[in-house]
Every structure is written in C-alpha cells, then in structure tokens.
C-alpha cells in the first residue's frame, strides 16, 4: 500500500493531493519509487496528456517494478535516473527552456516532492500551481537548525544529525526553500537525556 494519510498538523507542514490533469501545452512529471503509481493512476484516465509529457523517474529501491508500465504510457520524453541528485541538471535544463503554461506533477517521497518543487519555484512557477501526490516512504528530509546540514530519509524521532552528531527532535515546521523539516537538539536543556527513538507516526 503506497498511500499514507498524514495526521493534521501546523500551517507550514505541506499537504499533498491527488494528481489531476491540468490544461497546458507541456507537462513535466517527476516521481520517485512508489510515486510511479500516482503517474500510472493519472495515465489510466488521461492517457492523452503523456503525448506532451516529460517523465523523470527515480526508482530508488523499487528496481524494475514500475519502469515498464511507465514506458507504456508512451511519454514524449522518458528518463530513468539513478538518484534525484543525478536528475537535477536535467530538471534545471527543462525548466530553463520552458514556457508559461507548463504543468508540473510531482509524486513519491516528501524529499523528492520538496526538492523538485523548489526547482520549479526558482524557475518562476508559484508553489500553489505545482501539483504533488505523496506515495511510498514517509521518511523525512531534515535540516539540523544548528549546523544547517541536511539528513535524508529520517524515519525516527529523535534522530542523529548526520553532519554534527547532535540528537535532534523532528518538528513539523517545514521550509519550502530548504525542502526540509526542522530538527532541533532534543537534550539542550538536559544534556545527555535522550529519549529512545520511535518510528515517525507511531
């Protein structure tokens, strides 16, 4: 099951929807792992938009699972990349040549959605006009507010910052610009008293 219902939270925490076809001359779709299922669902009812679509897919640990079905949607351009970072130059090139009316669809983990959304915003698309659908892992991309380092794929609270080693608790406060949630030292007022980490949303 790739869908997860996030509990209600504060106003800065992103809320995801369900991808829907939008009017536009060109479509850019970026997905990772189970995010492919959201594109497949979109294609099931709206095969036509793929004629003008550029699909960028990062399988992560899903291997070959979705690649064949995505190719069957017959997008105008289809790229499978080994990692999100590796796909960034391509995403930037596509956006730099795009025209107003381009529709952007993002699907998969919060880390991918946040980072790709930031690229599209930098290119001049308001974030409210960028569609996103969460699928798959609920791991978070966290910024350590102290050292500024980003720790990817955080699944427990608290967790250890992969840069400075502090034990951080996971906040729901989220920065679109950093595409990350905020992590704050958990034992600042009682050094050494670190709670036992628990799975997020448990």
């Amino acid at each position: 099951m790739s869908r997860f219902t996030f509990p209600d939270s504060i106003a800065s925490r992103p809320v995801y929807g369900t991808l829907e076809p939008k009017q536009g001359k060109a479509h850019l779709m970026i997905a990772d792992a189970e995010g492919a299922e959201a594109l497949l669902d979109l294609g099931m009812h709206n095969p036509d938009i793929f004629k003008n679509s550029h699909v960028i897919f990062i399988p992560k640990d899903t291997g070959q699972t979705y690649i064949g079905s995505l190719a069957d949607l017959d997008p105008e351009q289809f790229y499978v990349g080994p990692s999100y970072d590796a796909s960034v130059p391509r995403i930037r090139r596509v956006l730099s040549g795009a025209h107003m009316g381009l529709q952007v669809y993002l699907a998969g983990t919060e880390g991918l959605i946040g980072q790709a959304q930031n690229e599209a915003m930098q290119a001049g698309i308001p974030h409210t006009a960028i569609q996103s659908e969460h699928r798959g892992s609920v791991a978070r991309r966290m910024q350590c507010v102290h050292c500024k380092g980003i720790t990817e794929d955080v699944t427990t609270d608290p967790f250890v910052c992969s840069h400075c080693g502090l034990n951080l608790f996971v906040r729901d406060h989220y920065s679109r610009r950093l595409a990350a949630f905020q992590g704050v030292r958990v034992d600042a007022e009682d050094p050494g008293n670190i709670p036992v980490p628990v799975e997020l949303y448990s």
Partner: protein
Amino acid sequence: MSAAPQKVRAGAEKIDVTISAVTPLNELVTRFEFARSDGEPFPPFSPGAHTIVELNDGGRTRLNPYSLMSDPSDLSTYAISVRRDDHGRGGSLFLHRNVSVGDELTITYPVNLFPLDLRGKKHLFLAGGIGITPFMAMIAHLERMGGAWELHYSCRSRALGSYADELKKRYPSKVQVYFDDQAQSIALENLLNGQPLGTHVYVCGPKGMIDWVHSMTASHGWPEENVHSEEFLAPQPGKPFEVWLCKSDMLIQVGENESLLEAMERSGVDAPFLCRGGACGQCETNVIESEGEFLHRDHWLDDDEHANGKKIMPCVSRFVGKSLILDR
C-alpha cells in the same frame, strides 16, 4: 497595550497639492500634474499605486481614485490622466471643466492595489484605453531597475491613443499599439504561448478585456498568481434609495448621483475606505436586514457573498427596494 490610543481614521493620509500643469492629450483625456503646496518633495510611490483626489464641487465633496502615472523616481511631481466620462456622475467632468493651474486640492498618500510582482522574470502589460496609466509608471520603474517588460496597448483610434506615439517612439521594440478602428487587436493566444516561465501578465482596461485575459490565461495553464488586473470602477448613478444605519442611529438618503459611501460621509458617518473602487475591501459593511435587491458592483465579495445579501461594499454598490438596514 494602549500606550496612547489613537483612533484609526478612514482613508489614507492626505497631502495638500497645487495644480502645476493641465495638458489635454486628446478629445477625451487630460493630464493633471500636482506639486506639493508646502514645496516639499512627494513621498516616493510604487508603480501601480493610485491616489484619491478630493474635489470640492460646489460644496459637495467628491473623492475619485486615479492611477499615478508619473515616473516614480521624480518626487517633484505626481501626475494623473483623466478620461472624461460624459455619462458618469460628474467627477471627471468637474476635473476637465473646473480645475486649472494654480488650484489647490487635497490628495491621499499613494495606495497600491495593483503592484508589480518583483519576482517576475518578465512583465507583460496589456492596456485598454485609459488603462494605460498605471503602466506608464511601471515602465519608467522597470527601465530604471533594468526589468524585462513588453506592452500591448489597445485603443479606439490613433487620435484617442493617449501616450501611444510617445511610447512607441521611445521603446519601439517593446511596445505594440492596436487601433480598433483599423480592426487591429492583440493576438493574445500567440502572445501567451511564447512567454518564458516566470512571466507575469498585467491587464488594465475595460471589464471585457480583463475577463478575456483571465479566461485565456486560465485555459492556457497560467497560474492565477501570475495574472494581475485592475479595473477602474467608478460608482454608477442609480435610483435614489434609503438606508437605516444602525450604529449611527440615523436614516440617510442616497441620491441618484452619489454612492452609498458618499451619502454616509455627507451625513457625518466616519465610514472606512481606501480605494473607493470596489477592490480593497476596507468599506465592507454588514447588512442587518433587507427587503429588495442589491446591485453589487465590487470585485471584493465573492459570488456567494453577492448572492446571500449579508454584505455590501458601499463605495460602488447600490440597492433597490423597500428597506435596507446596515451595521454602520
């Protein structure tokens, strides 16, 4: 906290000005230039801002909003261009006929309800007729700051194209002018399709043109945040009506040629306002009871609010019917 409580006054702060130039541009449009009566420089303003000009028309106060069209970097003068409306309530006619160099007036500090989105990678301006005025200030600003822009300006005829020749001459590669009487029109669809990501479009002109641009950009997948419009609404004359103002505890008559807001002000009620053109939301007033029909003309309330009769914008909207009671 109430350190020193001060009552919020209605409207923006005011400036006393003297008319320094009156320049007829064509049969319908005249430019008025102001200097500050105290000789000080004007406050700087952001392009797209308007000012409200206070006119004393034979004892009756008229407050009319006009876009500031002068170069925002020139603090020695503010300028507006006014199109004469022979069928309106007389504000523009009064300016055209009765105001001349040396006259003293009061205007408000600039208020901007039509600002540039300064993040825009490019600004595409669409003007219809007198809707050119805010773009004059925007163009001067972007030229100074090095911003990318393009103007498409539609007017009735060459003779009525205020500033068309001047703009075309100064910025030949950035300005396109279209004359209705030569059957020329903006090829909007092509224009929209070619714009780079991050372009913002701004339209100022008649309602039909604004609606056209909104629907065309929507159908071409433009985010609504990238589409900006300003329509100049003047209150329209209408049948007189009667209103009971609850808080003020008084019954007032709204005359044919005045707005509900003006009637309240005439009766000494200190009602809030800013734009006087149905756009800013400041004068929003709750309806306590009504029997009759609202003539909503504002851009502020949404369709549901227009339908349910619980609110009215007294700067532009009217009422026809038996009775109206307002929470003011």
